[in-house]
Every structure is written in C-alpha cells, then in structure tokens.
C-alpha cells in the first residue's frame, strides 16, 4: 500500500466567471520515503492539488468535488474537521513558498517551533524546548539557543526557510508537502535548501512531494515526476524518463525552453508559445492542442488518457510515439 494515494481528484472553484476546474482528475501515488515532484507552469493546478490533500482549499470559492485521497489507508476526504486537524502538521507537514511571510512576525522562532509540539504531542515546555533546539540543529542553523528567542525579521530568507522546514518536521510526519519551497530564495540559497530537504527526507525516511516550476530541481532531487497541465497530469515517469525521453509535447517544450549548460551556447531557446487555457472553458479535447505543434484532428475531439510508454512512464498524448528527442543540434 502506498503512503499517499490520490485518485481522480477534482477541485473546482465556483466563481462569478464560471467554474474553474483547477484540478480535474488527478491521480498519483507517493510511496514511503519517496520524493515526487509536481511540475507545471503557473495556474496549472499544482498548488491546488497539494492544498487539497490537507483540505486547505478555502470554501467559498473552492471545493473538492470528486475523487479520493488516501493517506496510510485513511480516506482524508471523509475525516471530520477535528480529525483532519490531527493529520495536518502531525502526519503531513507543509512548507510554503514564501519564507518571508510564512512565519508569524510577532512570535519568536522558539514559540513557533514549540507550538506544533504542544498542540499535537502534548509536550511540556522543557521537552518542547529541547526538541526545538534539536530541530534547529537538524536543519543546520548555527547558535540555536540564541535563535529561539529571536523573531523572524532577525533571520535571512534562507534561515527562515530552514525554520519552516524544522516546523514541518517537528512532529515527525510521514510526508512533507513543499509548495515551491525555493522560489522566493536566491539561487545560491536554493541549492542549500534543496540539498537540506533531500538529505533530511532520506535520513528520516520522510516522503516528499515537491511542487515546482523549476525543471532543474526535478532533475536532481525527484525520484518521480508528474507534469501537470490545465488541471491534469499529462506525463508521469522517473526523472530520467522525463528528461531524456519526454513523451508529451508540453514536457518537450518545457525542456527546450530552459537553457542548459551541456548544450552549445548558440543553441536556440524555444519559448512555449501562447497562453495556458482558460480553465472555465475546457472542451472535450486536449487542452494543450492550441499550443502544440504535433496536434492532429483527433486531439480536438478526444481527451487522451494517460497511456503506458515504458515501465512506469505514462503520457497523455495521442502522438506520444512520434515526438523528437529533446536535444537538438546547434543551429
């Protein structure tokens, strides 16, 4: 049994402009200790799918309208409010995108680290404080004793993100969901934070769902990759499959739009032309069709399901076997 099983998840937002199908039938699994990346451009539903796992979608306007989410065999969508609160922070930790604003500016670091321990594990002050020190050491923060009394504005962005990771790890969760954990950080710090997360999840045996639009992150840190487009997973496979043998035109286009050090400098970058589709007006066909250079007649009428292209590698494209390889010769 997988640690997390998401099946046909549908999260819709009911707005005055119509129903936004932000997540429209997403299925994936996360095994224990595994790192899964969810990749896609802004507005493709990757954050919403992650927030749905913890039922953090604000209603109104958003609501999970279909599918199931099973975590360690329990159906998270069927839990009461009190039960899901027990899962949040305790079984599943979350790291947010903005370390600058994800820590409460008026509470000390120590307070924010000890609070989940008090709320979930009923630790007393002394125990919680010791655990907080241990956590700060774990995430590589120097002089933890002093940090406990400091406020978030005393820390740099990288250190705040380390504190966020420490908070997510506080109750020894089985799974951590990281929603673009490095997007707001300097490039030099990004690598540190990612290395830290990889190292800690491996050492502590925690599974990690990492949401990102950065393909570089995916290549190095993920065991498995789900590429999302317009609320659905359009390709899934190992990081190696996705990088060296993409089987969906969108994945291919993404890879070609990123500069690579292993390519000649004159190699041309191809932006993905056009705009992502309006999620209130999806027809029955493939949503990537208007931007796709491989589109055929069938794409307009039938939505392609995820089809096997290799062991553990599936793609939702009718022409998955006709694509070019991702690397081209310099022009």
């Amino acid at each position: 049994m997988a640690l997390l099983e998401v099946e046909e998840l549908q999260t819709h937002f009911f707005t005055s402009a119509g129903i936004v199908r932000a997540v429209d039938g997403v299925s994936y699994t996360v095994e224990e200790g595994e790192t899964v990346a969810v990749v896609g451009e802004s507005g493709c539903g990757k954050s919403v799918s992650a927030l749905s796992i913890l039922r953090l979608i604000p209603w109104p306007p958003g609501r999970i309208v279909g599918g199931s989410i099973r975590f360690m065999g329990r159906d998270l969508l069927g839990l009461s409010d009190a039960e899901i609160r027990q899962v949040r922070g305790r079984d599943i930790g979350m790291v947010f995108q903005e370390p600058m604003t994800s820590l409460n500016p008026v509470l000390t670091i120590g307070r924010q680290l000890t609070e989940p321990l008090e709320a979930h594990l009923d630790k007393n002050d002394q125990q919680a404080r010791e655990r907080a020190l241990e956590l700060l050491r774990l995430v590589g923060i120097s002089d933890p004793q002093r940090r406990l009394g400091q406020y978030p504005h005393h820390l740099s962005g990288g250190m705040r993100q380390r504190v966020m990771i420490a908070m997510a790890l506080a109750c020894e969760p089985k799974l951590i969901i990281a929603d673009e954990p490095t997007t707001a950080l300097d490039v030099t710090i990004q690598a540190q934070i990612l290395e830290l997360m990889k190292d800690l999840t491996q050492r502590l045996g925690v599974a990690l769902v990492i949401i990102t639009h950065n393909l570089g992150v995916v290549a190095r840190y993920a065991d498995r990759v789900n590429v999302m487009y317009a609320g659905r997973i359009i390709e899934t496979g190992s990081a190696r499959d996705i990088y060296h043998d993409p089987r969906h035109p969108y994945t291919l286009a993404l890879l070609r739009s990123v500069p690579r050090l292993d390519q000649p400098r004159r190699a041309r970058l191809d932006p993905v032309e056009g705009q992502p589709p309006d999620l209130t007006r999806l027809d029955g066909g493939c949503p990537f069709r208007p931007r796709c250079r491989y589109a055929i007649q069938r794409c307009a009428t039938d939505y392609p399901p995820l089809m096997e292209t290799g062991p553990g590698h599936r793609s939702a494209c009718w022409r998955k076997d006709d694509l070019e390889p991702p690397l081209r010769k310099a022009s």
Partner: protein
Amino acid sequence: MATTSEIRVEAAFEEFERPRWRVSGIWQFARRQPLGAAGGIIVIIMILAALFADVLAPYDPVANDFMAMSEAPSWTHPLGTDQFGRDLLSRIIYGARTALFVGFVAAFVGGTAGLILGVTSAYFGGLFDLVFQRVMDVFMAFPLVIMALAVVAILGKGTENVILAILIPFIPRCARVVRSSALSIREMPYVDAARALGYRHHRIILRHMIPNVTAPFLIMLTAFVGQAILLEASLSYLGLGVQEPTPAWGLMLQGGAEEYAESAPWMPIFPGIAISLAVFGFNLFGDAIRDTLDPRLRAR
C-alpha cells in the same frame, strides 16, 4: 549539506539589524513626540494622583466642614471648598481615582471584547462576518452618549452600571477597526501555515492573529480611556452616573455649575479643567503612540 561558512555569512549579515530601542527608547520617544510626551506626563500624573490619593489629598474628600462652606481658594484650601465645605483639591485628587477606574476598566473590557469579536469575525468571514457586522452597525448607529444613557436607564445607576454603559458602545467601534486590520492578516501566508499545522480556530485567532493587530488595538485603547473619562463625567453630570458623595469630576462640575457658577466660580472651573486635561492628555498620548507604532508615519 549547506556548508557552515555560508551559514556564518548569513549570521553575520543579521548582526546588522539589532533591536534599537531599550532604555533610550523613552528619551527618543520624548524627543520625536514632544506633545505626546506632554500627554504622557499628564497621564502619569493622573495615575500617581489616583494611586497615592490617600497621601496626597490634604483633606478627607467626603468630610463636610460647615465652618468653611463655599470658600474661595486660599492657603488652607488651595482650590477652595464646595457648598458643603469639602476641599476641592482633595476631591479632584480622589476624583482621578474614579475617573481612571471607570476609564481603564471600560476601555479595557470593551476594547478586549471588541478585539476578540472583530478578529473572530474577520477570521471566519462569509455569512458570519456579514451578520455580525450588521449587528455592529446597529450598535454604531446610536451616538455614544445616547447609548450609554439607554443602558443606565435600563440597568439603573451605580459605578458598575456606568462602566457597563460606557463599555458597550466601545465594543462595535473597536471590533470594526480591529476587523479591518485582521482581514489583511487573515490573508497572510502564516495564517495558512498555522492552518496547515493543524491548529484549532481559537488557537489561530488568539495566538496568531491577535498579536498582529495589537498596534491598532493599543491606539484604540488609549483613545477609549479619554472618551470613557469624558462619558463618565457626562453621565455623572446628567445625574445618571456615579452618585454622591463619591468624588467624581462630572458630579462636582454639575454640583458647582448649576447654582454657584457666578457666586463661586472655582467650584465648576477646577473639575472642568481636570476633565479637559485628562482627556487632552490621553488623546495626545494615544496620537503619539499611533505615530510611533505606524512605520509609515514615523519620521526618519
């Protein structure tokens, strides 16, 4: 793993910004906000007068002295006496006790109730917020004095009822202001983060949101103390507030103004000055605190 040298660099950077105000904070406040400091001094004098009234007051504030009725200010009675021969200075000093007690209790209780209700309303939002705000609108529709009059008329006189009458109209005013700041706090990622950590609603409201709205709350609170003192004086003046022979400024003003304004002007003038000074002091102090706490208004 991140190298320790990089962490040291981060740590070194952060040494640049250390909390700047400690003991010199008060001095800096006085220099930047001279008016506020003056208000603060008035407030402190009032508090001291209230605390040490027993020591400071030369006479018993309720003792009649029929040998010295309606005496003009003199060396024995610096502010004169009233028609029962009670020493006005002593009564004003003791009156500070009544005024501050009513002022602080009403402002604090009313303000705190408004704080909790306002943040709760903003946190839950939706229909609850809508209904709650309309109820607050109804309360706000009454002018402060009319509302207080209604409460006293229903509950009767006496110091506790006066406090209640004053604090009820404060609740919607505080709730309204606090709610507007709390609405922006609710959208902050750290509130989402608190929800993602599985905290209960009351924990998020009390521990995570309320500390973030203390600045507007404190400003409201200082303004409320001044208003409450004025309201208490008004109610006492109208005969609906504190009852004789308790020394209260509004009561003294009323007792003096009706019959003795011409023949013995010191009787209404000194309590009137005390009321004005107190309200003035709290308002100046409150304004200065607002300017100091609000970084946009802080002169650099």
